[in-house]
């Protein structure tokens, strides 16, 4: 076998490996995109669960302090297809609603003592834990995707596929400012 043939075979092998790598990297981007979408829907599920529990809690509180809760109704609105920023805003609104319900409950000992209210409080805590988990899972997937997109040589394939960096589920600047003031 002559030198030229050997060179051609090696070149063909290298080209084949490059093609395989390109395909697998492209598929990796697509798989990660699906995972991000899946974890995004996990956030929606967690938000909905929290919203439903809050609604039930509001109904219980209304039995004891109807006039106090009228202002809380309609603060939060959830709809399908919200952007990440809208989801974060909804989460913050639910945080505020939870705090205000707790403030109202402190003025009504019978409400605090009610078993159904106590169970709903546990439900809210669990719903918040699920939302945190969904948020962290989503951010972990986005982080992996964005890292793959900016690092060489996978960035070449990402740009060929016109992949865009995904946004994280971030805390609103207002919330961070509020925390720093309390400190």
């Amino acid at each position, binding site marked *: 076998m002559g030198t030229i043939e050997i060179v051609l075979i090696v070149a063909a092998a290298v080209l084949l490996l490059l093609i395989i790598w390109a395909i697998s990297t492209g598929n990796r981007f697509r798989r990660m995109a699906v995972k991000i979408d899946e974890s995004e829907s996990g956030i929606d599920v967690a938000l909905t669960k929290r919203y439903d529990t809050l609604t039930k809690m509001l109904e219980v509180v209304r039995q004891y302090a109807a006039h106090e809760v009228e202002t809380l109704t309609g603060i939060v609105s959830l709809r399908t297809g919200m952007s990440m920023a809208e989801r974060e805003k909804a989460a913050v609104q639910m945080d505020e609603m939870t705090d205000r319900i707790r403030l109202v409950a402190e003025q009504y000992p019978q409400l605090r003592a009610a078993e159904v209210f106590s169970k709903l409080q546990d439900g809210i805590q669990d719903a918040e834990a699920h939302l945190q988990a969904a948020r962290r*899972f989503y951010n*972990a997937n986005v982080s992996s995707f964005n890292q793959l997109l900016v690092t060489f040589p996978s960035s070449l394939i990402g740009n060929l596929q016109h992949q865009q960096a995904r946004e994280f589920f971030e805390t609103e600047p207002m919330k961070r400012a509020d925390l720093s003031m309390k400190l």
Partner: protein
Amino acid sequence: MKDTFNQDSAGSASTGDKELLRQMQGLKKTVRLSRILAVVLPGAGFVLVACLASTGNWTWLLPAIGLLIFLWTGSSLILSSRSRKLKILLGQTITLPVLQEIFDLQEYLPDQGIAERIISASKLVDNWDRYSGSDFVRGKYRGLNILYSDIHLEREETDIDADGSTSTHYVTVFQGQWMICDFGKQLPARLLVREKSRSQLFRPKSDIETENAAFNKKYQISSQDGHTVFYVLTPHFMEYIMQAGELAAAPTSLCFEGSQVHIAIDSRHDSLELNRVRLDSLDNIRNRFRSEIKYVTDIVDLLLLNENIY
């Protein structure tokens, strides 16, 4: 509360500490001697047979072999029965009261461990062929339902020598304490958190990586459901798992499934045994056993009964 061992039924349980210690020392001495004989006799037999064969004294060969087999069988039987008697005596008089101090005890079985199918189903330890367990405890600890035992898992390995003949030996894959208790959350998917071995050249890959780089480096995380991983492994809880690993001073792995958690500590020794305890005082034995149980319950306190976890 049902006790497998009832102190009133055992005659020796009512003996004073001195008499009890004397009994245990006697049994341990017999066990030690029988162990030595079980090893020495075959060697001595080989030497004797070789000497008789070399002198051509075939008349005494068969009787000599017969005598050695008889002695070896006898010492093995004595070893087995004395070991068992010592284990029962220890269980009735020392182990059971110590366990009753710590747990709301429902059952104690010194010769059994947590069921093999439960250990296998957890998938915490891979690639093992032989199972043994001891010092099974079922009860409650500070309100949590618990199962506890020592577990020993071994893998069969076959060696082939230059002549092509094979020999089988067993390699320990896991030996230590295994506890299963209530977790307080219902999980839709299994989550395994396994401490990576320092000796492994290629560290096993995790299904998911958390934000805690030190945790990711130390533990392999396996689960079909990423949400479950982040639901269980909150930043606080990951810190406590790492602290628990330091406390155990041994590779520690956890399996979260349903509403239970398995805590497996690969300490490479059995607990509640006399092997590593000086038999000079029963209080020493009791204190040693208390510290061995506390070693595991401290981890449970840290991981499951800590108000600051979530």
